[in-house]
Every structure is written in C-alpha cells, then in structure tokens.
C-alpha cells in the first residue's frame, strides 16, 4: 500500500524507538542485577543454623500465592503480545480488549502483593526485621513499582486507542502508526517486568 521509501522511513522510525527501549531495558536489567547480586552475597555471608533467616521455613512466604502471581504475569505477557499484534494490524477493538486484560492481570498481581505485604506487616515483619526480609521487600518492592508504572503506561495506551489515535493514523494510509510503535515498546517493557519476576519467584520463594 505505502511506497517503499515511505515503508523504509517507517521501519527506521520504529527501529529507533525499539532501540531506545531495548537500551532502557538493559539499564533495568543492571538495576535488578545489583540487588540480586547483593542477595547472593548476603545469603552466603549469613552463618548456617536453624536461625538463618534465609532458611525456607524461616521465610514464611506463601508459595501458592506467588505461583498465582507468576501465572498472572505470564498470562499478562500473552495478552500484551496479542495487544501488540492487534495494534499492528489496526484492530482497534482487540487492541483495547487485550490492553484491558493486561491491565487487569497487572492489578491482580499488585493486589496479591499488597495482601502478602499486609499479612507480613500484621505479623510485625518489616524490612528491618532481618536481612532476608530486607532483601525480599526491596526486590519485590521495586519490582512492584515497575509493575505499577507499567500499568500506568498501559492505561495511557488504552485511552489513546479508545480516542481513535490508532484507527485514525492507520486509515490515513500509513503502514504503521506511532501508537502501534508505542504499544510495541510498552510491550517490551512489560515483558521485561515478567522476566524479572520469572527470576525473582524461584529465587525468593523456592530456592
């Protein structure tokens, strides 16, 4: 539909945006790597014994709840990928549908997290209680913050889509719209949040 030169121009713009987002994701990986490395060092530095706060029985964490959280994030990655695919073919309705599912699943994740934190605080367990909880709250806290910001970005995309930003530009004859690019880049961010949790879940709850 669009001539080759126009398509190439679009492709270059999309690649710039994705490059920028990937570089940002790289910085996010470094961000979490620092905390994870600290966890490794602190865990190995803590002397062995029954009182070791890193022992699994001493952690008092709910594996079933965290498994539900993991499944929710994985499903949200699936719905996010579907949303990106829908936005790229100009399908306004399905884009909104899948964005809403992703937002809903993200909120479910945060809801369960708040519940987990709530039960911890009710048992007078705070980040300052011991070194494991210090690590646990910092790692899941920063991850939860990333989820929250992702939900905000998804909401902005949803509003933009509903207002016809996507449809207008697509009907204007462009092969890709900037909204589709924004959706794709937000998708990359959301998948990274999922990947971080894929590592945090076994690290904090299982191993």
């Amino acid at each position, binding site marked *: 539909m669009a001539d080759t030169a126009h398509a190439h121009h679009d492709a270059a713009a999309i*690649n710039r945006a*994705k*490059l920028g987002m*990937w570089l940002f*994701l*790289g910085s996010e*990986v*470094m961000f979490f*790597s620092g905390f*994870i*490395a600290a966890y*490794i*060092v602190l*865990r*190995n*530095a803590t002397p*062995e014994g029954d009182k*070791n706060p*890193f022992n699994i029985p001493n952690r008092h964490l709910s*594996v079933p709840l965290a*498994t539900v959280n*993991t*499944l929710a994030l*994985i*499903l949200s*990655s*699936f719905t*996010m*990928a*579907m949303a990106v*695919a829908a936005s790229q*073919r100009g399908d306004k309705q399905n884009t909104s549908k899948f964005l809403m599912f992703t937002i809903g699943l993200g909120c479910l994740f945060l809801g369960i997290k708040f519940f987990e934190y709530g039960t911890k605080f009710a048992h007078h367990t705070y980040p300052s209680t011991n070194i494991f909880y210090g690590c646990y709250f910092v790692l899941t806290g920063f991850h939860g913050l990333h989820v929250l910001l992702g939900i905000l970005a998804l909401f902005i995309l949803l509003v933009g889509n509903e207002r016809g930003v996507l449809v207008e530009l697509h009907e204007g004859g462009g092969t890709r719209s900037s909204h589709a690019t924004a959706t794709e880049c937000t*998708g*990359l961010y959301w*998948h990274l949040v*999922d*990947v971080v949790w*894929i*590592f945090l*879940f*076994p*690290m904090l709850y*299982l*191993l």
Partner: protein
Amino acid sequence: MSETSSHTKLYTIIFISLIVLTALTVWVSTVHLGGFGNLCIGLAIAITKASLVALFFMHLKYDGKFDHYFYVAALFPIVLFFILVGAPLTDLAWMTMP
C-alpha cells in the same frame, strides 16, 4: 490474515510452555536434590522461561537485526558480574545442605 492466526497459535503454544515450566519449577523445588542441585535446575528453568519470553513475546527471534545480537551479547558482562561477585564466597555451606 493468516499471519494473524499464526501469531495467536504461536503465542498460545509459548504461553502453555511457560505454564508447564512454572509448574515444573514449583514441583522440582519440593524434590530435595541438595542446595546446589535445586539451584541448577531452578536456574535452568528460569533461563528457559526468560528466553521464551524474549525470543517470541519480545520478537527477538523475528527482528533479526544486527542490533539485537548486541543486546544478547550484553548478557555476558552480567554473567561475568555475578561470577566475580560470587567467586570469593567460599562459605557455600547452604549449597551442601541436604
């Protein structure tokens, strides 16, 4: 339009694989293979899941641009970082725990 339905099918397959791997990692954690064994398997499963998300959901497999090889190569300094951080730790008692 067939491109769309193949996207859905592919994403569904990857999604189901991720669910299966999640169930596997939870189950394996209940099987006591010793600290080090559980760590290796847990890490292997986590890396597999992350790779599935990165390759298919994040489209790394299809983008094929030269840039993306740099992103993957950027993982090597991170691995090096973890090795350098972990190497001086000689007290690995928790790893030998039954």
